C-alpha cells in the first residue's frame, strides 16, 4: 500500500474531490497547512515599497507562507499511477504554486471498526 501526500491549492479542493469520487477513491484526509516552495513564498508578486528603517528590522515584503491544502490518500500499489495522474490533471494550471505530490510506502492499514487489515481495510 502507498500513501499519496498531495499539497494543492485550497480552491481546487472540490474539483479534486469530484474527480477522485468519479474514479472510485473517495476516501482521504485533508489538512489546511501553510508552506512555501522554491520561490520562497510569493514575495515577488506582492512587492511594495517598504521604508529602509523597517527593512533593517527584517520586515519584508510579500507573503512568507502560502495557505495550501494537504491531502493524504492511501491506495493499493496498482492504483498509485491512476490517482497521481488524476491529481496532476485536475490541479495543473501550469503556474508556480500548483503543489507537489509525494508517494510513500505504508506497511499496514487497519480498519478500527472491524479490525480488518491490509487490502480488506482499504475496500
Amino acid at each position, binding site marked *: 500500500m*502507498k500513501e499519496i*501526500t*498531495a*499539497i*494543492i491549492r485550497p480552491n481546487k479542493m472540490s474539483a479534486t474531490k469530484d474527480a477522485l469520487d468519479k474514479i472510485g477513491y473517495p476516501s482521504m484526509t485533508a*489538512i489546511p*497547512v*501553510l*508552506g*512555501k*516552495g*522554491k*520561490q*520562497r513564498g510569493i514575495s515577488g508578486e506582492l512587492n511594495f515599497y517598504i521604508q529602509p528603517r523597517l527593512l533593517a528590522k527584517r520586515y519584508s515584503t510579500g507573503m512568507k*507562507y502560502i495557505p*495550501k491544502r*494537504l491531502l493524504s490518500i492511501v491506495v493499493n500499489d496498482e492504483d*498509485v499511477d491512476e490517482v*497521481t495522474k488524476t*491529481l*496532476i490533471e485536475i*490541479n*495543473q*494550471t*501550469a*503556474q*508556480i*504554486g*500548483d*503543489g*507537489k*505530490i*509525494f*508517494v*510513500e*510506502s505504508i506497511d499496514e492499514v487497519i480498519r478500527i471498526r472491524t479490525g480488518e487489515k491490509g487490502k480488506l481495510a482499504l475496500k
Partner: protein
Amino acid sequence: MKMVRAIVRPEWTEEVTDGLAEAGYYSLTKINVFGRGKQKGITVGDMHYDELAKTMIMMAVEDEAVDEVIKIISGKAYTGNMGDGKIFVSTVEDAYTISSGEKGL
C-alpha cells in the same frame, strides 16, 4: 528522496525555517499540531496539560541533504529542555511537481 518531519516548539519555528533558508532549503510545509511525549504532557501546579501545542515542519529533501537538514533543525530548535520535539525521516518513493507534471523535486 526522504521526507523529514520535525515536531518543534511553535515559538522556535521561525528560527528553524530561517536557518534552513540560509542553508538553501526553502521548500517546506508547516502544520499546527497537538501532541504529547514520554512525559505524558506537562503538570504546572495542580493543572495537568495532556496535549501541548507544537508545529510540524514537513519537507522532502534529497538523500544526501538529510544529514545537513537534521543538523540544522536539531541545532536551531534546541533548548535543552524536555519538549524540544522529535525529527522523523521516512523514504519517499516518488515526487511530482503538479505545475509541470515532472518527476522529482
